[in-house]
């Protein structure tokens, strides 16, 4: 627990991103949150120039992933992450509006850690995010491999 966990938030809706950040903060999580509003930017940051992800070696990352992105699907990002040797053990929390059973099944099959449906009702939404924040504050995150 020496390295602080960095939260990578991939969420195309800026309002949602802001609300998520605020509610996570409200639950007392003060870790760095790096927001991305599209898949391309997020992947470029994660895999860096050499496409290996070695730039983040030793960093403890937690990825918050929305499935409906303008440029690619969240499942595609999830697949790439789980196929990469650097990020295959990085926890990925899928946080999306979709509650389609097929989609949920597919995400878990691809190796996501948690799948959360964004409640439409804001109270439940805020509540869910705060609980997620509390969850973040207690879970152990391994550093990116190699």
């Amino acid at each position, binding site marked *: 627990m020496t390295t602080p966990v960095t939260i990578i938030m991939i969420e195309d809706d800026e309002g949602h991103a802001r609300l998520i950040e605020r509610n996570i903060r409200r639950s007392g999580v003060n870790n760095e949150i790096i927001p991305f509003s599209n898949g391309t930017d997020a992947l470029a940051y994660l895999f860096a120039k050499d496409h290996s992800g070695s730039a983040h070696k030793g960093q403890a990352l937690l990825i918050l992933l929305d499935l409906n992105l303008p440029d690619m699907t969240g499942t595609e990002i999830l697949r790439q992450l789980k196929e990469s040797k650097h990020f295959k053990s990085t926890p990925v929390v899928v946080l999306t509006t979709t509650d389609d059973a097929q989609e949920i099944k597919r995400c878990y099959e691809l190796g996501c850690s948690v799948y959360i449906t*964004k409640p439409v009702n*804001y109270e439940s939404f*805020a509540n869910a995010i705060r609980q997620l924040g509390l969850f973040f504050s207690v879970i152990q995150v391994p550093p990116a491999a190699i």
Partner: protein
Amino acid sequence: MIAASGDVDIHQLRRDLAVTPERRHRRALLQILLLTAAFLVLVAISAASVLLVNKARNDSAWVIHTIEVENQTNALLLELRRAESSARGYLLTAAPEFLNDYRDAAAAIPTEVDKLDSLTVDNPAQRENIDNLRSAIATRLALFEREINAVSHGDLAGATAMVREAATGSTAEAIQKLAEAMLAEENRLFVLRSTNADRTQQLSSTVTITGSGLVVAFAAISIVLLRRSAQARDAAEAALRDANLNLEATVDERTADLREANNEIQRFAYIVSHDLRSPLVNIMGFTSELDELRQDIFKRVAALGRAAAASPEPIATVDAEPALEGEDQRLAQDFSEALSFIKSSIGKMDRLISAILNLTREGRRQFEPVRIDMRQLIETIVSTLAHQAAKAEARIEIGNLPNLTSDRLALEQIFSNLIDNAIKYLKPDIPGIITVKGRTKLGFAVFEVADNGRGIDPKDHQRIFDLFRRAGTQDKPGQGIGLAHVRTLVRRLGGTMSVNSELNSGSSFTITLPLQWTAGNRNEEA
């Protein structure tokens, strides 16, 4: 593209069908005219033939008559010669055989003359000749008589003188001439009459040949017309067959198009409702943020107000709702009111979007036909609704229920919606009785969910099945989705549903479902 070609084919067919009767009518009229003409020609030929045959027979009879007259004339002359020769014989031999012979011939002659006379009654010229001939014969016979008398009295010389006198006399010559004249006259008549008969025969054959030719020509025209109309009919039939095939293909294509459009609408509704949720979360989230901001702002306003009033009173409880006064209080109330309207509207919109999402999700679900014990299914629903029923003081009665093969989840949703509605819209003052019963009819199961509740005005019977529409007093929560959903499900299960109700006298929903539903093409439609 394809649709357009289908249209063209149908128009082509219409044109064909529109023109053909007119043409056919004209052709039929022509046929009748031809037949009539042919018939008339036949009648004319027959009549002409009969007339001409008669005339020919007549002509022939006349020809024969002429020959008879000639014969008779010759016979008369022969008898005369016989009388003359037998008279000469007697004169020479005085043998009584000759005398007998002579008597026979002399007796025959007047009858022969009479016969000839009767044969030539039609010809005045011949009559005159016969009259002359008769007198000449009479003279000649009288002469013979005198000769014979002379011989029988032994006056041979006198007889010989008489013969000599007779030979030089004109009587024999006159008879000869008259006979020749008569024969010549008959010859002339014979030539005339046989030419006549020939002409009649020729006319008859000409008429027959011409008539036959005409009839054959008419028949040929008739056959051509018939063949042409048969060809036209064949062409029309072929066009009809093609059009039918095209129509089927067009229907298939349209069905596929409709299915595709339906799927697209489903996808569209799903995506729209899905995408609408994201901004809604934002609106709701930031409204909540605003609400918190409001509390902060009015706290500060209150603090500032008090500071301005130079009140040294310390703010004891920071968290407690600060006391606002006058104008500030009114502002705070307006603010709260505005926020609460926004929140309630968002809540409503949120429920509607969720409902659409659920409907589209239902539409996308694949139905699976299984054998269903209806009684068990209804009992399960009733037990889950028992709490609500108890609260509404309603009793649910389950009658006979036929089992069927259908989709379990869909049936659960159909009946729980209907029973839930029945409980929801009971009359508050009388204890509710809800009955669920069923029967089978011609391969279909007919279910009925009836209540003694508030009922539905007949003018609203259509409306209650529309999405987001409700009827009657709006005193119960709901989005107006239940019945729309139920009807969609019933239709997908190959059934129909109807309502029978009056205001204040309960409602009865009838659902007809196939006993053996197979997930055939209905599933593809969804």
